[in-house]
């Protein structure tokens, strides 16, 4: 899905791992107080290694952490319904605005005020455009 488009620094990796670990804990320990307890433990595990200067060890630790995260993923991670991966994500497609321009005249006639206003706004927009950028040249088709 996502192509690696930039460099990800070590700090970012640790932060991301920490956040994902917390999310994972959240789906396993569903009572808030229990989750808090485990979150503190998790924070402690990260804090223990925060002073490691040797990048080889640090990298290794991250790899281990990611592997552990993968091995402990929940079968139904807690997701907000409207965020990606959630149950209601992308349920309704909002058709683009230009679809309205291609309505049949009879359909448009059902909402006369709206379409009158819409046409007026379009004219105003064209006027604004021309004022700003000048008249467009003759279109090729």
């Amino acid at each position: 899905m996502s192509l690696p488009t930039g460099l990800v620094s070590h700090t970012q990796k640790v932060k991301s791992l920490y956040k994902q670990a917390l999310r994972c804990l959240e789906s396993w320990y569903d009572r808030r107080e229990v989750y808090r307890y485990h979150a503190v433990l998790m924070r402690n595990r990260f804090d223990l290694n925060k002073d490691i200067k040797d990048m080889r060890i640090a990298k290794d630790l991250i790899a281990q952490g990611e592997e552990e995260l993968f091995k402990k993923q929940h079968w139904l991670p807690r997701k907000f319904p409207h965020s990606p991966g959630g149950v209601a994500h992308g349920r309704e497609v909002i058709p683009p605005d230009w679809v309205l321009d291609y309505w049949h005249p009879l359909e448009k006639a059902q909402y006369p005020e709206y379409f009158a206003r819409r046409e007026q706004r379009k004219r105003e927009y064209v006027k604004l455009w021309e004022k700003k950028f000048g008249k467009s040249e003759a279109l090729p088709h």
Partner: protein
Amino acid sequence: MHICLIFSGLFLFWSTVFFLFSIYFIVEGLTWFLEFNLLMINSSSIVMTLLFDWMTFLFMSFVLFISSMVIFYSREYMASDIFINRFIMLVVMFVFSMMFLIVSPNLISILLGWDGLGLVSYCLVIYYQNVKSFNAGMLTALSNRIGDVALLMAIAWMVNYGSWNYVFYLFQLKGDSYMNVISYLVVLAALTKSAQIPFSSWLPAAMAAPTPVSSLVHSSTLVTAGVYLLIRFNFCFNEWLMYFLLFISSMTMFMSGLGASFEFDLKKIIALSTLSQLGLMMMILSLGSYELAFFHLLTHALFKALLFMCAGNIIHSVGDFQDIRYMGGLVKFLPLTCVYFNISNLSLCGLPFLSGFYSKDLVAEIMSMGYLSFYIYLIFYVSIGLTVCYSFRLVYYSFVGSFNFLSLNSVYEGSVMMIKGMGGLIFLVIFMGSSLSWIIFPYPYVIILPLFMKILTLLMVILGAWIGYELSKFFISYDSLSLKNYSLSWFLSNMWNMPVISTLGINYYPIIGGSFLYKSLDQGWSEVLGSQGIYSVIVSGSKISQIFMNNSIKIFFVLMIVWLMIIFMI
């Protein structure tokens, strides 16, 4: 007038009419049989057959009543949707297909309802435009299509008898080799439609549909179509097939009961509970008591529809959240929904004198009386316990305890239409079990059991309730036993890996095979040996002849000499 009100009123009216008809037909012992001849090929005629007896009328009246309530309910649930008209029309089409399925005792005319159910339910599952419903719809439609194909094949075998009105042949031809093949294929079809074990994965996946659809389609009507077909067909099953069905259905019941105890999606828990109830119906059916299966089918339709409607109300008021880990303590916010939810849940568990009790307890006791094997006995009672277990877990998770939802919320019981729609069903959930048992059975079943076996159901219920309560409690979560037994809990929560097997496991080879065939056969060998091959042969041939044409006049002279020599030598 709003489209929902129109169809809701219409269906309510017809439901009442059909209910009265069914009572009349029971009292008089009537059966009406109508045939429309469509086509005659030699001596076998393809007919549209309609069979009306108390069973069809009762089933139709229940389906219409539930759909009337669900459509009324959808007016508010789907109110903000711009395509609500399409939605309601699809639901109405679904109800019509169901009617056609119920009244057709003919293998060809039943296809009208059977395929209609599959296609319309596909449209309803993919009603939402997200990828989840896309996949779920594909899984649903294709699982059901296996059943359609099985029915088509059954039609091909039925032609041996010269007619497809199977009701005439079931008794006489039991044990006939053709009839055996037909019954195997019909059972296969019913297994797909009722989501029994190899095909179970579509039912929880189909929960991607809007909740009214889950309430009407995937709990009370569509999935019971398979059971209904078997109820009509069960007279011709041989012993082996009955054992097979018993095994499959008991495994389904057990599997879904376990799965529901590990599930966190509100709708999927109820879907899995539907699956376990379907297993129960199939089980009692394969033990020979088809009337009991029908009885449980009806009562189950009522309380399961209500359960889903309550779930829909919860989802609606908490803003599309379906994860029960986000809920908790909702009883303070949604008291009436909680009451409905609990009543139908307890009815599902078989609490005495609610409607589920009459059917489920009867099933359990008939099961115990016709003692078959310890395995069946054990699985059955454990599954009954599991039903109670996940129901109580669900209640404790979502309604009791601490409030786990977002702090900015507007959870309150404001959806009047939905409450009214649910209110229409609640009375039936409470009363219909007893009244149905008085209506359907001409005399009460005689149950003779030792005390321990008699109260075993109650014991299992209490045990299940206790375990369910424990499951929802603090200390389970404190040490997360499911994290400790990681692979086991994955296995159980993923329905014994069935969703993986029936999606990736099935579609991998056709797609790879399609690509292979397209590349190597269609665009490969067929071209090489066909058009492109001929083309290249002709091109190279004409290139060779072009060498001769190409200005080398000596070759012509040589050729002429050769020819002359040949002529002279001959």
